[in-house]
């Protein structure tokens, strides 16, 4: 393991592209953590299972609509809807089943965390019973091929799609949060739930919408993930915890932070893997998490929930 010298020179540009692509997916999932945290001050530990639901939504839909010899780009666009629907549905079910009853009872923080873990375990087991243990690949909709070549770096069509979709979702989210009525509600609750409630904001409704939005973003992330990787019942665990790391890295509760954190974590992880080997990829991500929390627990951009950035 020749450390510093090897990893900078070898295939750095390639790893940069890979890092941005993975990072885009982390960012989309991280937004779900950040939104829920902004509104409820709660880390939604079961968000990984929302992501998994998205992969299955896409899988089932694509299996239905594509023929035996794969699909085309149109099928991919069509699969966005079921992926989002599955993510949003599971997210809202989690809120209703595992969080809302506890909120009603004014339960302790620890209770929320344990309930979230329980819900996560339950969902995984539902997927397991339903789909079994095997990995399932989404039907191929677009063939991965390089479309851009800058110097020695090849950028594939999938890289471009993932990155563009992420940007589109973030722009859409920004519009939703800044310009719409429900966005105003989300910002109000994030700032001061009690006052917002006294001003006539229906908190339960805002919370439900927050979970729907977060679930939808995870659904899109799941579909993009499925362009490259197979799915199964526990597929959400790693992207989920890494996206959480990304959210913390950028500053949890902060939308721009989630974006920045996702992309940085993707880059750090991929470049780090170039230095230490791919087997250490996950250790690198977790170490980043520990280091960030040690030295800057509020993340790069800071926790900005109270400043109206939801």
């Amino acid at each position, binding site marked *: 393991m020749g450390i510093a010298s090897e990893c900078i020179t070898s295939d750095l540009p390639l790893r940069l592209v890979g890092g941005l692509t993975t990072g885009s997916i982390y960012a989309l999932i991280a937004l779900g953590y950040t939104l829920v945290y902004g509104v*409820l*001050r*709660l*880390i939604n*530990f079961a968000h990984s299972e929302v992501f998994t639901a998205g992969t299955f939504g896409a899988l089932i839909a694509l299996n239905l609509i594509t023929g035996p010899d794969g699909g085309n780009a149109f099928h991919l666009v069509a699969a966005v809807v079921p992926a989002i629907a599955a993510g949003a549905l599971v997210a809202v079910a989690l809120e*209703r089943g*595992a*969080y*809302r*009853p*506890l*909120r*009603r*009872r*004014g*339960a*302790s*923080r*620890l*209770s*929320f*965390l*344990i*309930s979230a*873990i*329980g*819900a*996560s*375990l*339950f*969902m*995984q*087991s*539902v997927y*397991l*019973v339903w789909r079994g243990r095997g990995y399932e690949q989404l039907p191929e909709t677009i063939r991965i091929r390089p479309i851009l070549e800058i110097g020695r770096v090849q950028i594939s069509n999938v890289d471009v799609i993932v990155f563009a979709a992420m940007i589109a979702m973030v722009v859409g989210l920004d519009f939703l949060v800044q310009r719409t009525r429900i966005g105003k509600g989300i910002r109000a609750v994030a700032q001061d*739930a*009690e006052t917002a*409630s*006294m001003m006539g904001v*229906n*908190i*339960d*409704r805002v919370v*439900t919408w927050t979970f729907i939005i977060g679930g939808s973003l995870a659904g899109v992330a799941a579909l993009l993930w499925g362009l490259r990787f197979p799915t199964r019942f526990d597929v959400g*665990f790693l992207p989920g*915890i890494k996206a*959480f790391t990304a959210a*913390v890295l950028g500053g949890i509760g902060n939308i721009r932070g989630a974006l920045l954190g996702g992309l940085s974590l993707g880059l750090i992880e991929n470049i780090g893997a170039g230095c230490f080997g791919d*087997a*250490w990829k*996950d*250790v690198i991500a*977790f*170490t980043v*998490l*520990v280091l960030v*929390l*040690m030295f800057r*627990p509020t993340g790069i951009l800071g926790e900005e929930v109270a400043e109206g950035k939801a």
Partner: protein
Amino acid sequence: MRPLLALASVIAIIFAWAYGDARLGGRVRTFYDKRERWMFPVVFLSFFGVFAVLTSFLDVAKLELGFLVGYNALLAMGLNVVVGYAGLLDLGYVAFFAVGAYTMAILSNAGPLQVPWDLNFWEILPIGIVIAMITGVILGGPTLRLRGDYLAIVTLGFGEIVRIVAQNLDSVTNGARGVTGIENISVFGKSLGLDPKPYYLLTLGFIAIAALLVRSMNNSRVGRAWAAIREDEVAAEAMGVPTLKYKLWAFAIGAAVAAVGGMVFAAKVTFIDPASFQLIISIFILSAVVLGGLGSTAGVMVGAVLINVLPEMLRGLSKLGAVGDKLLDARFGIFGLVLVVMMIFRPEGIVPSRRRAAEMRGGAEEAKGPLGGGLPAEPAPAGGDDGAA
């Protein structure tokens, strides 16, 4: 059908218990609390006496299960110090179990790395405890300053780091292939071999020691500091409680107990690999603690028994064919569901600690979770209505 019947009877007993506890629990506890000075040794000795005598009636398979329950109960007691007493959610507890097990494997020269000493179980035991405590302090030092939910995810990450390191560090841990041929425990120069009985008794002994230690700590200055920290950390700090110090102590004690469990485990099964230390173990132990009752030693042991014996009962389900296999796959999900339902209806657990019960029921204002308490839309605590969006 037998497993289903057994399962049904266990569930019936739990419900009967919950009912009886609601009707009589308070009076029984008051009776006990008043006479604790002499009742405790009686209850303690008879409890361990029963479990020790039980060995003569159990066959090897039951004793193996007993050992499984035993080291899980030990782990649950250690985790109870961290989660139940100090109120710190540790999701990577299995890491300390792994540290203990790998310390045993490496120092007894079973792994690829040869150490220059020839140590037996009893000599490695204190070394492993110290290593685990140091690991706990190294992890806890920087992270225990963080708020609870961050701590949960950092510990989760740490648990995964330990497992992946064990998997990748071929030259020390033999990687994914694991370490075989770990020496069994010897007593007075005689190896205990493969018979589960002595290990079961040994684990029982460790549980008894841990129970006494934890009890005396909880009744001391340290225990009062823990209670203050979990109820209101800011107030505790303001009152001059060195919160970080006591949190570190909780972490280190929890780590030490887990390491003892890990070392006994490694010496009993003689084979460990990274797959024995997955996240699900941490969650399993946590379920035992929560199910039994946070902060209640008796409760935690009940939890450990339930969580290991129930799946064992369900194992018979595989005879039912495909449906049984599905049910077997679903059993983790059942635990998950139980955790959620417990948090909603009985957050204090089956055999609750009285003080903890009051806290979990929303007695301590500061410990309240997201949008709890302060919201005007909140109905009376007794109301269980839902879905009025």
